[in-house]
């Protein structure tokens, strides 16, 4: 060993620690960068002395990252569903504002008033007005439910567009990472970016990541390979014949395969669940309720006689199901014709006969809904309870999934995240090491200088 060797040792130490300081600085600067995985300098001793610095190692825990992706998708799905149900719940919030129940009560009250004053034109008109208001309230809620389904479809389309944008970026990064690795370069920042995009993707659709030996990832999601190598599959959102959401996957822009049933997580799954399961369940209950009430009212009304002596008129008009509630309206032949209200049971006893009006009013407390087992109020309160339970269940699901996601994210951060404390200690360590190597260089220099003077 000679002084030249000592100079070489100092040089390698200076270079390795400068590199380590560079990595530490990079870690510190990325402390708040989403998806960033901390790096560690890959220092190794050299044969014959000295130190070498290889490529920085990216600290990445496959298991915790995969767990975070899965729970993130579930949390996002639960959140999207919960948000959608929040709007539905407000439509049935009869606790503080007037709604269908209130309008229905006013309608049956107007029937009672009619039974007390069948010969009063104003009371007849008020009854028609209350019936129209009740139908209008029902129709408004049903139309809002349909609008929400429509809005959710638009959201699903927007989400599919986002998914397609992200998968295209991941596919491009797959190619870039392969090239970088093949040329011996550092691909860790590209991998971080890809990992961040995968996390973003998992918020929108269920994602499973398979990494091959070359560093490329295959992204499986929605029952198809969303990304395979440098190729991305596009998702398209539309409606099937029944009006339900249909998601198709197409690799080449051609007719895609229906993958709707395989969408298992992410925002897209939450939107589909709310749109095609939760809201239709409410619509179906509302349709049944309206159909039963409307049919009973029409049957009884048709049995009576108007002040004009005519019988057989319907009070309400409606179609379906489906779509009963949305088409529910005061029958056109009754609009503006209070004399046609069939209050009388006996045409000869009109206009003071209230026989049919009393029977119509009595329907308010009879079991004409729920398949003949519930009063109108009980049947509607069941719908309110159903909506409340569904939203409450969605709220709880959000809490559970959010908690699982937080745990998974904590695990992942614990492995891959940056700790400033740690980095500051490293900074000090590498700084001191750099200073020590500088001292070695200085000592070697002084020795060489002494030698040169001696010579």
């Amino acid at each position, binding site marked *: 060993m000679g002084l030249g060797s000592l100079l070489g040792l100092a040089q390698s130490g200076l270079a390795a620690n400068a590199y380590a300081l560079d990595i530490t600085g990079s870690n510190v600067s990325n402390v708040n960068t989403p998806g960033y995985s901390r790096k560690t300098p890959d220092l190794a001793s050299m044969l014959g002395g000295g130190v070498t610095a290889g490529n920085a190692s990216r600290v990445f825990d496959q298991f915790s990252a995969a767990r975070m992706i899965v729970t993130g998708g579930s949390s996002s799905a639960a959140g999207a569903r919960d948000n959608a149900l929040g709007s539905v719940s407000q439509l049935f919030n009869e*606790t503080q504002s007037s709604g269908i129940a209130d309008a229905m009560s006013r309608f049956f009250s107007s029937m009672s008033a009619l039974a007390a004053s069948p010969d009063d034109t104003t009371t007849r008109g008020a009854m028609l007005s209350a019936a129209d208001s009740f139908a209008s309230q029902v129709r408004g809620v049903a139309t809002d439910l349909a609008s929400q389904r429509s809005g959710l479809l638009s959201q699903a389309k927007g989400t599919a567009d986002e998914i397609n944008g992200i998968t295209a970026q991941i596919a491009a990064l797959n190619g870039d990472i392969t090239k970088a690795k093949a040329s011996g370069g550092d691909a860790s920042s590209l991998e971080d970016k890809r990992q961040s995009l995968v996390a973003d993707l998992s918020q929108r659709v269920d994602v499973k990541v398979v990494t091959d030996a070359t560093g490329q990832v295959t992204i499986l999601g929605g029952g198809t390979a969303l990304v395979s190598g440098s190729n991305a599959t596009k998702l398209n959102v539309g409606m099937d014949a029944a009006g339900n959401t249909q998601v198709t996957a197409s690799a080449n822009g051609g007719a895609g395969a229906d993958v709707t049933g395989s969408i298992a997580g992410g925002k897209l799954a939450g939107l589909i669940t709310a749109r095609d399961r939760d809201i239709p369940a409410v619509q179906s209950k509302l349709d049944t309720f309206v159909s039963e009430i409307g049919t009973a009212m029409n049957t009884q009304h048709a049995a009576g006689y108007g002040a004009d002596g005519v019988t057989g008129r319907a009070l309400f008009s409606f179609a379906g199901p489906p779509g009963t509630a949305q088409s529910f309206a005061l029958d056109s032949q009754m609009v503006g014709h209070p004399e046609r209200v069939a209050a009388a049971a006996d045409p000869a006893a009109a206009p003071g006969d209230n026989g049919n009006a009393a029977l119509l009013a009595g329907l*308010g*407390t009879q079991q004409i809904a729920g398949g003949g087992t519930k009063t109108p109020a009980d049947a509607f309160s069941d719908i309110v309870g159903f909506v409340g339970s569904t939203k409450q269940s969605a709220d709880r699901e959000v809490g559970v999934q959010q908690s699982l996601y937080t745990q998974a994210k904590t695990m992942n951060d614990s492995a891959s995240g940056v700790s400033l404390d740690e980095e500051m200690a490293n900074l000090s360590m590498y700084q001191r090491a750099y200073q020590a190597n500088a001292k070695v260089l200085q000592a070697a220099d002084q020795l060489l200088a002494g030698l040169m003077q001696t010579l």
Partner: protein
Amino acid sequence: MRITNSMQYDALSSSTQRLESRLLDASRTASTGLKIAAPEDDPAGAAALVRLGTIEDQTQSFQSVIQRVQGDAELAEGTLASATDLFTEAKSVALQGSSGALSASDRAILSLQVDGMLGDLLSLANTKGEHGFIFSGTLTQTAAFDASGTFQGNDSTRNVDIAQGVSVVANTSGAKAFTAAGGTDAFKALQDLKTALDANDPTAIAASVKGLDDAHGQITAARADTGLLMSRLTTTQSTHSQSLTMLASAKHNIADADLPTAYSQLSQAQTTYTQAIAVGKQVLSTLSAWFTA
């Protein structure tokens, strides 16, 4: 476990958000006094509120019906009271006219008096209420009697529900009060008196007293029925008022928050939130200690 800065920030952020949410809930409950603001807060409670609200509306509707019926019932009762007074007066005229001391001209004067009574009776029997002639049965747009005292209405009843499963006959039967359908034709009884007075026949005048008594009794009976109806309406209305009080109480029990608890929870949430902010500041200052040391 290795603790990173993002873990600390996330923990701070999520705990602050959770506490903010709790603070918002607590402040909403304390400010509104309601523990159910939406169906999901208590689905069973929200459904019960709908049911109770409907029962409340139905009860108020029954009260409204009672008020409508009461108006015409009070009018009928007052009219029948006047009619009984009229027949009391007619009987007095008959007794006076049957006296042998009266001359034919005296009886002619009494006949004119009875003639006026016939007009008064026609007017009373054709009294109009809020929604038509109150003694015409269900033919409320037709006068109960024509000028000759012939009944033009019918004897149909108008049954009205005044409570769940409780129905009353809301109209007073003009047929039973004033016509032979009730046993005596009141108009005929008066007419018989007038005819006897015009004929200056003391015997026939005395004989007419029975008809007048029968008509008086018949109208009194109809008045008693109307009085019973009014009494029943008043009693039922009182019951409804009590029911409404109980229903309101039941609704409050379900929907209202316990205010001392709500204020206590609000205070607790505020304190916890303030402490969390203080802890957050402390953690952030610790994180920056490296740079200030």
